[in-house]
């Protein structure tokens, strides 16, 4: 009799507002499009305020402010105040750069509910290398201030070959900072992570060791800290239920106002996603682009008759396109996909080239201009 219901949602419950592509860090696994430097100008405050109201009217409840670095927007406080007034649960997803005690307190008064703070690693040397900036000490100070002001705090660390061996140290560090949640997310190979995949993909044995360490830590965990370990679909043999299914609960709005059902959707061929400054959120939710991979009608075999299609929704359309060239294909992360060898070959290539120390392609404007035309943002 008792429990949570699984009624099919028909509205965006989760809105991710990417306020800007500007960022003081240069993490080379960033999920932003490679061609971010070509984007048009950022949405105005007025546009964002309208978007927040429209999405809330449609039933959205969870709102994430992200980027780039959302703290670079000087209207962040105004947007959070309006979001709180509209009774969203507001999440700030930040690197911590640009945060200080006073701003934390202003954001708190504005009604901010929660802060997700990223670290690139749990030591200064590694953290600063991966982020391409000397940010570690500041981040640590910000983490302490976040807790001091009574916010719930999620520490987020993206895992890859360069830091996955230190996962036990990362967990100790998160516990020491009194994180309420720690999210250990294996890199997802879209955006910049796709460009740097050979440098980022861990080996199977690295992954197994890390997962064993997480399990050990969980067993001896004394505090209330909760650990979210986000698996690597490259090694799972099963695709991830990307954004809980295309057009089911999630809408992302990019800095220039393009509405997307998935982080990488902008790179899909032949699709021009609607913009929030041209049409309403309600219209966008019903648009042909948001309907394109909704439900199961688009599926081919092996998805079409697969008993797991209701759980994984066929995986990520953008990953299917990036790797196989056809967004209607089964996500090749699935071992049942006829293209699964693409994943196995990628793991093997990364393993073979692991010792040849290539420099990473850091996420910055310069590299965005160089690599963006080839792989990045299609529409400008």
């Amino acid at each position: 009799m008792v429990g949570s219901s699984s009624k099919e949602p028909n509205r965006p419950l989760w809105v991710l507002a990417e306020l800007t592509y500007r960022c003081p860090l240069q993490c080379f696994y960033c999920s932003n499009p490679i061609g971010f430097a070509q984007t048009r100008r950022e949405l105005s405050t007025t546009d964002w305020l309208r978007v927040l109201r429209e999405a809330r009217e449609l039933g959205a409840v969870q709102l994430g402010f992200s980027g780039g670095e959302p703290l670079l927007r000087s209207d962040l406080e105004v947007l959070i105040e309006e979001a709180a007034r509209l009774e969203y649960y507001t999440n700030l997803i930040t690197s911590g750069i640009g945060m200080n005690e006073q701003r934390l307190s202003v954001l708190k008064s504005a009604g901010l509910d929660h802060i997700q703070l990223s670290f690139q690693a749990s030591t200064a040397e590694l953290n600063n290398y991966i982020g391409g900036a000397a940010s570690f000490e500041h981040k640590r100070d910000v983490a302490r201030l976040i807790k001091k002001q009574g916010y719930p705090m999620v520490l987020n660390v993206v895992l890859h070959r360069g830091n996955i061996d230190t996962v036990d140290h990362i967990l100790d560090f998160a516990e020491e900072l009194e994180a309420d949640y720690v999210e250990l997310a294996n890199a997802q190979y879209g955006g910049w992570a796709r460009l740097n995949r050979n440098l980022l993909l861990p080996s199977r044995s690295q992954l197994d060791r890390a997962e064993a360490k997480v399990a050990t830590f969980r067993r001896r965990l004394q505090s209330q800290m909760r650990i979210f370990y986000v698996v690597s679909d490259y090694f799972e043999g099963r695709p991830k239920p990307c954004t809980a299914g295309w057009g089911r609960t999630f809408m992302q709005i990019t800095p220039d106002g393009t509405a997307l059902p998935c982080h990488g959707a902008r790179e899909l061929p032949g699709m021009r996603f609607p913009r929030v400054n041209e049409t309403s959120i309600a219209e966008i939710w019903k648009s042909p682009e948001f309907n394109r991979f909704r439900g199961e009608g688009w599926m081919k075999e092996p998805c079409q008759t697969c008993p797991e299609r209701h759980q994984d929704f066929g995986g990520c359309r953008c990953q299917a396109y990036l790797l196989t060239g056809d967004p209607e294909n089964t996500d090749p992360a699935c071992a049942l996909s006829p293209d699964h060898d693409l994943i196995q070959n990628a793991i093997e290539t990364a393993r073979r080239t692991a010792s040849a120390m290539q420099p990473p392609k850091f996420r910055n404007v310069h590299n965005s201009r160089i690599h963006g035309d080839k792989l990045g943002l299609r529409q400008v």
Partner: protein
Amino acid sequence: MTGLIQAGDIIEMAPHYRLRWEDAQQSYVLLYPEGIVQLNGPAAEIMKQCTNRTSFEQVLGEVGDLYPTDDVESDVREFLEEAASNGWIIIQRA
């Protein structure tokens, strides 16, 4: 702590969780950092009781009045234990 509920345990919704009625969904939802759970009627009634410090006996008393079934005690107990393991509520031994 998680695990089995005993007589006299103090129960409270975890800090930073919000329980709220959502018109659009015609249901109560539980909100927390980057998460949302839609609750059905009985689950919402139990969670409502937990928004302030309470005990298993008090929750059962209130919910039992609303749903006077034979297995209400085991249902409430099961839900609370599940809620504790999900981190929605905190159980303190008196």
